[in-house]
């Protein structure tokens, strides 16, 4: 700065130090962009591999017969386990969310939110160990035990998701209901829940998508099954997709690998479609709420 005299006729382009700083900044921008491209590329590669290798396994038989040709019983089993889990976790999750937004004072609020966050952060294998000790030890494996484990995984997701949309319900609605002399429980059931329904369904769908692919707890509580026959009895271990993929991946058997890719394709398409659908639903209910 000191030596160079100010030259008003010099062109207005960066020189010296500024040029270096600009170049560095551009390198950093390129790096950040590259990182984002990398993440999307990894997603693309994984999805492409699953689709290209799984597609050849798909056939009508694949969906409707049991082992060794198809995974019909596993699809049915995963459906049953997830439905029971959601039937347990959804009402509980909504009630917890309602407690947080409508009833809890400042003092009860924090510990319960902390509980939900800790529950959400629990490794799923720990939940598997817990349910094993609670229901399976000295007993037998069962689809029901798997459902309980998945319900524990779903609960914090549904509760926190529902809580967020319940907080978006405008206070003016609550005040209007109060002003009309409507009691609290009627307000909750007829005003607050309906207007938050879209968001609650969204978080439930996301929780289902997460639970459907959980493998670790099922390995411990619902993994010894006969993959040939379909069963809807929740009190025995029934075939399910994640454990099927896992056990096939552990055997070095090319035919098994082909079946595992097919099963992966079925599971992944369900999960990705469910999360995409939930996302679209969320955008719509946000837009409606903002009106």
């Amino acid at each position: 700065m000191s030596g160079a005299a100010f030259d008003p006729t010099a062109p207005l382009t960066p020189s010296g130090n500024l040029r270096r700083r600009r170049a560095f900044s551009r390198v950093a921008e390129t790096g950040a962009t590259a990182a984002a491209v990398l993440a999307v590329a990894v997603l693309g590669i994984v999805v492409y591999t699953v689709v290209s290798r799984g597609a050849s396994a798909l056939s009508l038989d694949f969906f409707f017969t049991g082992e060794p040709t198809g995974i019909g019983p596993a699809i049915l089993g995963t459906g049953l386990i997830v439905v029971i889990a959601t039937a347990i976790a959804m009402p509980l999750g909504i009630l917890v969310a309602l407690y947080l937004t409508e009833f809890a004072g400042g003092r009860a609020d924090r510990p319960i939110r902390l509980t939900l966050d800790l529950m959400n952060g629990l490794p799923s294998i720990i939940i598997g160990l817990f349910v094993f000790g609670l229901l399976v030890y000295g007993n037998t494996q069962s689809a029901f035990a798997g459902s309980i484990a998945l319900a524990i995984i779903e609960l914090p997701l549904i509760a926190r998701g529902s809580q967020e949309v319940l907080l978006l319900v405008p206070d003016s609605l609550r005040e209007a209901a109060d002003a009309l002399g409507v009691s609290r429980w009627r307000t909750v059931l007829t005003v607050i829940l309906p207007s938050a329904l879209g968001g609650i369904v969204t978080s439930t769908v996301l929780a289902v998508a997460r639970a459907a692919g959980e493998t670790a707890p099922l390995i411990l509580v619902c993994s010894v099954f006969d993959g040939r026959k379909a069963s809807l009895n929740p009190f025995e271990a029934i075939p399910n997709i994640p454990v099927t993929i896992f056990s096939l991946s552990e055997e070095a058997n090319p035919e098994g690998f082909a079946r595992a890719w097919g099963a992966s394709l079925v599971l992944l398409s369900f999960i990705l479609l469910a999360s995409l659908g939930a996302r679209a639903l969320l955008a719509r209910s946000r837009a409606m709420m903002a009106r």
Partner: protein
Amino acid sequence: MNGTTVNPAYVADIRRGRDARSASRLRRIDRVGDGLLHGLCALAALLGVVVLLLIGYQIVHGASPSISKFGLGFLTDTTWQPNFNIYGAGSVLFGTVVSSFVALAIGGPIAVSIGLFLSLLAPKGVRGVISPLVEMLAAIPSVILGFWGILVLAPFVHTEIEPWLHDTLGFIPLFGPPQTTGASVFTASLILTIMIIPIIASISRDLFLAVPSDIQDGASALGATRWEVVRGVVLPTTASGVVAASLLGLGRALGEAIAVTQVIGAGSTIKASLFETGDTLAGRIANQFPGAITEMHQASLYYLGVILLAIGLLSNLLAQWIGRRFDYSKAVGK
């Protein structure tokens, strides 16, 4: 209030006192309803707390035979020999820490860069497409990612990345000679990297979006380049949040069982090289629990669960504490 006419029937009702009676019945229903709903909600919330406590109790209870036999020495003992009923968590603890930290070391910077790209660089339309795609990475079930890891990633790592790293950085013991297969701690770390990137990226994106634009504009007005705005304004104001996000990602990596057990190769000794097989706490539980017959074997696996639970809860609590303690928006009173 013009033109309001009162229905004469109501007037008659009120005169006869019917309204008062039905109102009191209504009030009774409402009292019961209010109490019932409040009670149910409180009960559900309480159930959540009870389940969490019960999980802790059950895991410790399951581990108690092993805890009383091996004590705290379990943490450092590296022998794990079910045939001789000798168990120690040393090697899996080592494997867990190494694989998770390698994942964080690779994934953390990438994820923060993605967050920066999404919040500061990308045009709105691009952000709307890339953001969900990055989050979708988190939706891939770990069993599928692990299966992909065995058949696609591990061979690639084995033939391409490991030899290259060994040739260029082989003087560091971490990058030893490649082994016979791609199943290694390094491959497991890469899978964990893929898992934690979306978590850290989406949290840090939200953090960066919340940095007030006037202080960023202020820095730009002083002549700072885009990188200098990030370096001097955005990162310092969100540093604690980024640390908290990384801890959450770390917690996820520490607890991942399935994908890790698929690709890590279930080694049972401590090796300096990342390209050797290893095992983690969660991976060992997933791998051996279904076949654990003796009581002590099972209890020792539960003991691994106790360690995992403790580490997981600690990292989670620490993340919460840091996130709250150093919350920028609170510090400036917003």
